[in-house]
């Protein structure tokens, strides 16, 4: 029993880590980013490249790739998203536009990765050592994912709820139309939120690459998992993403242990669909 809780939380930590970036991009910058998973995969490959070619370890790679993720996302927002935001008459139009444009972006990233790395499976071994957690042997790299998601989550909550800048971001999320009336530069806030999301995607990619086998075309899986977590947690809600991520991890583990491993994903979708019907705005979403 206890081992399933531990395993479930560790698995859920990965989901939470992956989903936080997306919830910020979607909740604050209002971009439904379907290329999110491919950004993660790109970071996986970058980590692999740094590790295998330049002997730069994944931990050190965080210092390089997280700022790179921030910078590149900033650029993507300026070049591609900004014109769409400017022309969108309402939120619904922006939603459709951003879905379509990031769908295109997904293929571009995928295509570039395919050209550079080919379609094969990539994996390496790093920090794959056992750590004893309450009697259960857990992989150190997965534990790192859980730890990082909790630390980053806590940091984000503090920034969002305890600083002036965080308040600005939350205002933009709640009332994008009236925020400018209070002298808030919505464009700058959205740009930063999108870039923070990109930095988080890079973080997720670096950590994931340590234990997950990845391919150039595997990004969609991450996007969808992250999307489920985001919707479950309520869009834009960092605590929601963490709770929902951990919840999914627990559901998968318990179903695998007590029902049938073949039904883990079916169970995830059932929980997701059922919750969506009962609480359409997510666990932490506002009605």
């Amino acid at each position, binding site marked *: 029993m206890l*081992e*399933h809780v531990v*395993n479930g939380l*560790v*698995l859920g930590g990965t989901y939470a880590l992956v989903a936080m970036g997306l919830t910020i991009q979607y909740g604050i910058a209002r971009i439904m980013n379907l290329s999110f998973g491919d950004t993660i995969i790109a970071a996986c490959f970058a980590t692999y490249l740094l590790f295998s070619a330049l002997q730069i370890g994944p931990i050190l790679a965080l210092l390089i790739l997280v700022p790179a993720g921030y910078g590149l996302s900033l650029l993507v927002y300026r070049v591609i998203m900004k014109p769409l935001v400017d022309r969108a008459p309402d939120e619904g139009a922006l939603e459709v536009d951003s879905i379509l444009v990031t769908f295109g972006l997904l293929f571009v990233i*995928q*295509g570039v990765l*395919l050209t550079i790395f*080919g*379609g*094969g*499976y990539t*994996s*390496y*071994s790093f920090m*794959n*050592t*056992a750590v004893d957690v309450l009697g259960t*042997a*857990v*992989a150190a790299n997965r534990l790192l994912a859980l730890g990082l998601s909790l630390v980053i989550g806590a940091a984000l909550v503090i920034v969002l709820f305890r600083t002036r800048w965080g308040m600005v971001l939350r205002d933009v999320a709640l009332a994008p139309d009236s925020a400018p009336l209070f002298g808030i530069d919505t464009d700058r806030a959205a740009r930063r939120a999108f870039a923070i999301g990109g930095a988080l995607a890079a973080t997720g990619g670096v950590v994931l690459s340590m*234990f*997950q*086998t990845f*391919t*150039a*075309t595997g990004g969609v*899986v991450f996007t969808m998992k992250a999307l489920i977590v985001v919707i479950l947690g309520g869009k834009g809600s960092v605590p929601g993403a963490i709770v929902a991520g951990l919840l999914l991890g627990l559901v*998968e*583990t318990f179903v*695998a*242990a007590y029902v*049938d*491993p*073949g039904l*883990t*994903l079916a169970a995830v979708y059932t929980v997701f669909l059922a919750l969506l019907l009962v609480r359409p705005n997510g666990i932490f979403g506002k009605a």
Partner: protein
Amino acid sequence: MKNAIGQAAGAVRRLSIHAAAATALVAATATAGLAQDSDTVTIGYAVSKSGPNAGGSDMTVTPNYELWVEEVNADGGLKMPDGSRRMIDVIAYDDRSSAEEVVRAVERLATQDEVDFILQPWGTGFNLAVAPLVATFGYPHLAGAAVTDKAPDFVKRWDTSFWFMGGSADYVDALTDILVAQRDAGAINDRIAMISVADGFGIDLVKAARPAFEEAGFDIAYDKTFPPQASDFATILGEASNAEADTFVAFSYPPHSFALTKQAKVSGFNPPVFYLGVGAGFPVYPNIAGGSVEGVMSLGGIDPDNALNTAYRERHEQIVGRAPDYWGSVLVYASLEMLGQAIERVGLDRAAVAKELSSGTFSTVLGKETRLEDNQLRAINWVGQWQDGQFVAVSPEGGDGTAAVKLPKPAWD
């Protein structure tokens, strides 16, 4: 309403423009086909360069197609019966891992590009998807990367199809032989924990394994499937180790094989027999497992004393830039060698080539005398094991190109 009709008329106009354009295109390509250079042999294939099947294609199929063509062309081209040589032209499409796409690509290769020969895509499902078309168009179908127990039926249905990878029952029976010998020697108990991936490959194998293991007197203590998207195996391995089985069998795909290995090391799960599916025979596997792969078993395996195979592996590494896997690659490559030799004997007549393939004897990387039985390759290494850094073919006692299996598996480092 008027507006709607106007739109309708407009759309019809546009539609007819498209139709006209399509017809023009057909005409243009048809003449291009006629003008094709008759001094070369055109070989076409559709493989998954993107999508979920890309990983498998990129390991087992595509590199061998490229390697073979490059070698033949470097040699001056394909030999014809009259002693002349013709260079190979390649037309390669990406099926994007979509069944509809691979079917249309084969139609395109056959009727549009009018290629001389068609090489086949990766995977059982896709080989079956294109099989009726390939047969209708009269091409020999060399299924290099497709495991199916129904091959004996398929060669009746499509008599120009050739199957090079055997069926699930073959792999399972060979493994069962080893397990029985080990149990009778008292090395392992009679319990087996078995998991399988829920798709064609995994289910085919597990379906063959259940009766085979039980008939041999084994107790299948844990028997579960997992979805192909699964990435976390902590719980499954935990449950499997609770089964107190000395034999762990996973009919898995590469991502699962890699994850299972990593997880087994972390949880200290080290049964005497540790058998994985596809991926454990990849050259990158020792690297992914962090070095300690001694004793891990899987499908395939090579005979390290086979000089032909060793030479093939060296050429593959040289030209493709990485080593081939230890299971399917060599079979795919051998099928191409057979095609080349069949052409050398009977020329470009496809029916004659098919006939030669089913009745002839060939010299391939598998051995000097490779031949098909009922259009199927049977001389395959079914079980392999990592021994001293090589993934070698094994059998209970060794001999006949195989090494003796070494069990129990030593501990992970």
